[in-house]
């Protein structure tokens, strides 16, 4: 009999799970059910009087038909941002894990430091950085990389840049954690066994860092897909993502059933993609 069983009796496990289960029931299960019923309700109602559940699957068809470009943009922007996060984050995490020496802690603190300011404020400051009369735009114009009347703000570039910036730490930290665990001796062993630097990376370092790659891309891609702040502040109506649409449907249009249907579609898509990805990467046991 373990110590826990002595205190809680035979049902120790259930008693210990109970608080978390209750929490999830109230704050996860109930909202999800509410979302599902709303998504299947008659849109004829309104937020004040409520909606009647009529099992109207048509909501989903309409939501997809009307808003598929938003879903597409979300996946595209989030995908590109995740890709850039992976490249930037991998290089930085590698440097922190293997090359930083005594600066390791400082560099890690710097990675986390942006969390001390609000997400909103940081995104707003990107508005200044990418402004039409900002130094980046002017430099690009003087180098003829951007047309005289060209701009960055209100373009997909700005939205992707904002997403990349905002979610980079979520990529770096899991990557750092798995890179840091790799014994540097393995790299030496590979060198000793005739692997050149490129082979050492792809045959040893990369496969051993896969748990971090999977973790980091999920932590970046999932919130980036649902994000609407970057598209709202840095984009234009033409760069709106699915999050902007859902927010608008709930708050300004007041069409709860279609907003709920769109949310469920987004959720289902992400779950399906994650499952496929994790299976493909073959790292279920590493997550």
């Amino acid at each position, binding site marked *: 009999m373990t110590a826990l069983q002595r205190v809680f009796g035979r049902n120790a496990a259930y008693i210990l799970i109970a608080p978390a289960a209750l929490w999830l029931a109230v704050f996860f299960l109930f909202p999800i059910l509410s979302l599902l019923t709303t998504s299947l309700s008659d849109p004829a109602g309104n937020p004040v009087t409520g909606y009647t559940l009529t099992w109207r699957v048509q909501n989903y068809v309409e939501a997809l038909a009307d808003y598929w470009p938003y879903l597409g943009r979300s996946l595209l922007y989030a995908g590109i941002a995740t890709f850039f996060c992976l490249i930037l984050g991998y290089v930085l995490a590698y440097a922190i894990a293997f090359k930083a020496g005594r600066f390791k802690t400082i560099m890690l603190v710097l990675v986390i430091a942006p969390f001390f300011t609000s997400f909103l404020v940081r995104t707003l400051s990107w508005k200044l950085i990418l402004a039409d009369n900002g130094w980046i735009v002017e430099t690009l114009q003087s180098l003829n990389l951007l047309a005289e009347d060209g701009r960055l703000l209100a373009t997909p570039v700005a939205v992707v840049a904002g997403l990349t910036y905002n979610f980079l730490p979520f990529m770096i930290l899991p990557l750092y954690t798995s890179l840091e665990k790799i*014994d540097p*001796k*393995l790299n*030496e*062993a*590979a*060198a*000793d*066994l*005739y*692997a*050149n630097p490129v*082979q050492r990376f792809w*045959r*040893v370092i990369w*496969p*051993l860092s896969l748990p971090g790659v999977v973790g980091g891309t999920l932590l970046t891609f999932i919130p980036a897909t649902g994000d609407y702040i970057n598209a709202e502040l840095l984009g234009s109506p033409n760069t709106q993502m699915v999050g902007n649409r859902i927010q608008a449907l709930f708050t300004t249009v007041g069409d709860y059933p279609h907003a709920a249907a769109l949310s469920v579609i987004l959720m289902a898509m992400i779950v399906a993609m994650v499952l496929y990805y994790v299976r493909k990467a073959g790292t279920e046991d590493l997550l």
Partner: protein
Amino acid sequence: MSLAEDARRDLRLAGLTKRYPNGFVAVKSLDLVIPQGSFFALLGPSGCGKTTTLRMVAGLEGPTAGTIHIGDTDITHEKPFKRPVNTVFQNYALFPHLTIAENVEFGPKRRGVKDTASQVKEILELTELTEQAAKKPAQLSGGQQQRVALARALINRPEVLLLDEPLGALDLKLRRAMQIELKRIQEEVGLTFVHVTHDQEEAMTMADTVAVMNEGRIEQLGTPYDLYTNPHTTFVANFLGRSNLVKGTVVGREGTGADAVVKVDMHGTVVTIKASRVHTESSEGWIGIRPEKVLIQPAGTPLDAPGNFFSGAVVSEASYMGVSTEYHLRMPWGQELICFEQNTGRRGGLVAVGTQVDVSWRPEFAFLLDSSQDAGAGIEEE
């Protein structure tokens, strides 16, 4: 250089030096020739520079000065993945994400060998790992992992195989078995093995030639037998086995050639030491004698004493160890000497503590070391 010598692929280190950026000199102008096909051990305490030397041969660290040759090929600045040298790492450094077979074929694959299957099969048989081929390293025992590390290096048929404390992580029993196993494999494949260890017994049982290293230099190089029976420095005398070192004054040298001896006054008794075993020019020295060469007999009973003889010693301590007994003898001048006596049963018991004993040893076993050296050098802290 003759043609025959040209063909030999000895590992030659010349003036090899490693100075770290913080000023610490790990290896001090090392000159060493390791003959092709030999089992060579670099023996020394931690921090003596033996691992640094190995890493420089492997190419994992660059020397500050000096050269490394295999035969006539200069490999001093060659990249590690281009050297005909492989390493068995301390703690093995097996690739955890690859199976045993994949670990073993890693080297051949990188060198572009097309069909590795037969080579892998052969080497796994040699190291008795055939059953484990599809397993991951974490599923194997320490001894099996050790053999994988060996197989992974050996499959490449390197000209020189470096072993960095290869048995350090194993328990004593397994270590003994692996010592024999390694020796067998080396004889079977006939490659040059360079074995780094701090375990003197391991070095002595396995290697043909042992270089004892201390503070970045080689103290002495020779066969295990030579090193043990005729140490040249107090460090070697203490690091390999144990030694009694007694202060003595040289009183004269007699004879010539092989019969030359040196007479040394040892607290009033003159002892003779063969000139070939005298390693000091000065008038004072440490007279060394191995504990198992020291014979004792209770005072008044006859003692087989063909050589150097002392009376007036008292047994101050007796530790019975089954095979043998370790006696501590307090000599008239106050020093304690150690004596190991085989328990042959001839005595019918132990010599009791407090017994007065006579002490003797055969003159051919003694050696004389430089008195300026520290008599405590090389004694390992437990």
